[in-house]
């Protein structure tokens, strides 16, 4: 057996990320000011982003695929992590969790997502997923002295492990059925043997659907999300509501469209009710929330429902719209969490909806930012949220799912109710007590970027759309 050094080009971003993260971990031992660690992390991400450019290709016998699809997703992850780091800098000081490991874990988690996005083999997929998930569990429980954080971590962890078991069971079944774990090989074998109607294959697909639904927090596998989002440190909530979700969609898209491509009819039968339920439960339960983090958790569930439409469409356009939506969602959601974080100060939680009463009077800029993000989440033009929804709806209707889209738009109208309530509280109520904002340059930068992108994409989405279209072209 001859050992040939595999081509490391495609995997270079991951290698750079690993090396730099390890260096950061080491540097953390000597650096007292953790802000420096944050800065280093940002540099690390910048380097990775830079290296993405030349990383196209497949390596490790097809286990690692770096194509437009994965690169786009990696950009989302990296964007997500950079924004998260920016909004974290001040926040983790306030929460008294200002440890260097925080940044290392976030970076490792992102690495896991990047591996997921590029996974061409179920084993790699599983490991990437666990790398991401385990880091996130730790991060969710990072405020160790806080019972809620503990609880969030426990719930997330146990249910996550439970879902992983399902994923593994599905993997084992498909391995038995095809004798392979390589996605393309699986697809080829299924096509070759005409396995599409096989019950065991179906069951395996169901297990995958369940496991991925868990990751993207789709109903009824969403139950962990509200609790984990509420209890986790706010910055991590922001991170979790975008990153793992996006990663979940990345693998969902890849596995379902590649490996289970010939089961399209079957999985769309599963995913359509899941999507509808997800939109329904997410939007409806969000209405009666009193905690804004929890409300955004439900909102995040609902958004997963919308995004599922792109997967259900099952076309390149659909995938492109999923990608576009997730990118936009990253901006607007992290933007919203950025404002929430701003309200958190030493002795003030600032995550109850009541705390937003009269914010427009006391802090007009913060309120205006929140307004834009809320309208974007609702999907009102000229914000980016609308462009995202529009592209999803176009691809879903184009694939013939007009009925589902009608349900989706009605739910998105319902969603206006709770997003607007935040605006209403900020602008139409009188402030009860003066809220002190804890801003920092990093946070301001993150919010500015989010705002500009939300508006810019809303007004001029052409570049992004073309990029997504281009990225997905080789899928």
């Amino acid at each position, binding site marked *: 057996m001859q050992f040939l050094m*595999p081509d490391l080009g495609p995997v270079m971003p991951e290698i750079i990320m690993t090396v730099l993260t390890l260096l950061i971990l080491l540097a953390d031992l000597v650096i007292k000011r953790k802000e420096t660690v944050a800065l280093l992390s940002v540099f690390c991400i910048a380097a990775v982003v830079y290296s993405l450019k030349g990383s196209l290709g497949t390596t490790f016998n097809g286990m690692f695929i770096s194509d437009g699809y994965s690169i786009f997703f990696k950009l989302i992850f990296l964007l997500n992590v950079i924004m998260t780091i920016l909004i974290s800098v001040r926040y983790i000081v306030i929460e008294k969790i200002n440890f260097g490991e925080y940044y*290392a874990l976030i970076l490792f988690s992102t690495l896991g997502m990047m591996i997921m996005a590029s996974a061409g083999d179920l084993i790699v997929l599983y490991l990437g997923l666990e790398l991401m998930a385990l880091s996130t569990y730790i991060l969710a429980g990072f405020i160790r002295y806080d019972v809620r954080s503990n609880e969030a971590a426990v719930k997330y962890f146990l249910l996550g492990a439970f879902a992983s078991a399902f994923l593994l069971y599905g993997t084992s079944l498909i391995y038995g059925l095809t004798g392979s774990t390589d996605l393309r090989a699986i697809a080829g074998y299924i096509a070759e043997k005409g396995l599409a109607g096989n019950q065991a294959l179906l069951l395996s697909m169901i297990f995958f659907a369940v496991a991925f639904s868990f990751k993207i927090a789709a109903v009824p596998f969403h139950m962990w999300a509200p609790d984990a989002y509420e209890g986790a440190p706010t910055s991590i909530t922001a991170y979790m509501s975008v990153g793992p979700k996006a990663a979940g969609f990345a693998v969902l898209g890849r596995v379902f469209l590649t490996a289970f491509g010939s089961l399209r009819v079957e999985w769309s039968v599963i995913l359509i009710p899941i999507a509808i339920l997800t939109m329904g439960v997410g939007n409806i339960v969000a209405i009666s929330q009193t905690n804004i983090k929890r409300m955004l958790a439900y909102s995040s569930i609902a958004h997963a429902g919308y995004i599922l439409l792109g997967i259900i469409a099952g076309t390149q356009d659909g995938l492109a719209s999923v990608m576009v939506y997730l990118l936009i969602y990253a901006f607007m959601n992290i933007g919203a969490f950025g404002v929430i974080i701003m309200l958190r100060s030493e002795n003030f939680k600032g995550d109850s909806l009541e705390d937003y009463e009269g914010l427009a009077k006391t802090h007009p800029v913060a309120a205006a930012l929140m307004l834009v993000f809320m309208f974007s989440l609702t999907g009102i033009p000229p914000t980016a949220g609308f462009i995202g929804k529009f592209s999803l709806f176009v691809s879903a209707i184009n694939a013939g799912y007009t009925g589902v889209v009608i349900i989706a738009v009605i739910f998105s109208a319902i969603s206006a109710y709770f997003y607007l309530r935040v605006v209403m509280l900020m602008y139409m109520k009188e402030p009860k007590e003066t809220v002190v904002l804890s801003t920092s340059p990093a946070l301001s930068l993150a919010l500015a970027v989010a705002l500009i992108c939300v508006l810019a994409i809303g007004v001029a989405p052409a570049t992004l759309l073309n990029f997504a279209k281009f990225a997905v072209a080789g899928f």
Partner: protein
Amino acid sequence: MTMLPQLIFGYFAAVIVLLSLLVITRKNPVHSVMWMLLLFFHIAAMYLFLNAEFIAAIQVIVYAGAILVLFLFVVLLLNLKEELEADRFVGSWPVAVLVSGGIFLGLASVLRSFVIGRQGSFTVELIQKVTHTKTLGLIMYTEYLFPFEIASLILLIAVIGAIVLAKKRMRSH
């Protein structure tokens, strides 16, 4: 004589199921851990039966030796007395019986249409000739080098995580 493998399998299968049930039904967590230890040995034996010596070995070393010990540590940290007085099941257990039973039926019923996939090249003879550990090692460090590296990172985070979550100092300044 031809019945022997089936008989052996029957024994292991019965014991594994029984032990599994014991693990999840014991009130005293220490007992659960102990039954689980026994369960892992039986599973390891079954791996041997399937020509997977290396897997059997790490089943014993990692699972029984490391993971279960970890469990035992934690269990011993707890207040066992209180544990023994409390209910062991949640109120909704009948639902769980139905659901898990249903899932079992589902899993079992699909086996009917199960067909084995494409045959590989690692015949029993080949593995026995080169030894299981070596063949596994060979493909692990060549074909599966990439996942292997990821696994190392996972272990690294496990270390970090355990330290971060369990160390004494809770708050930063």
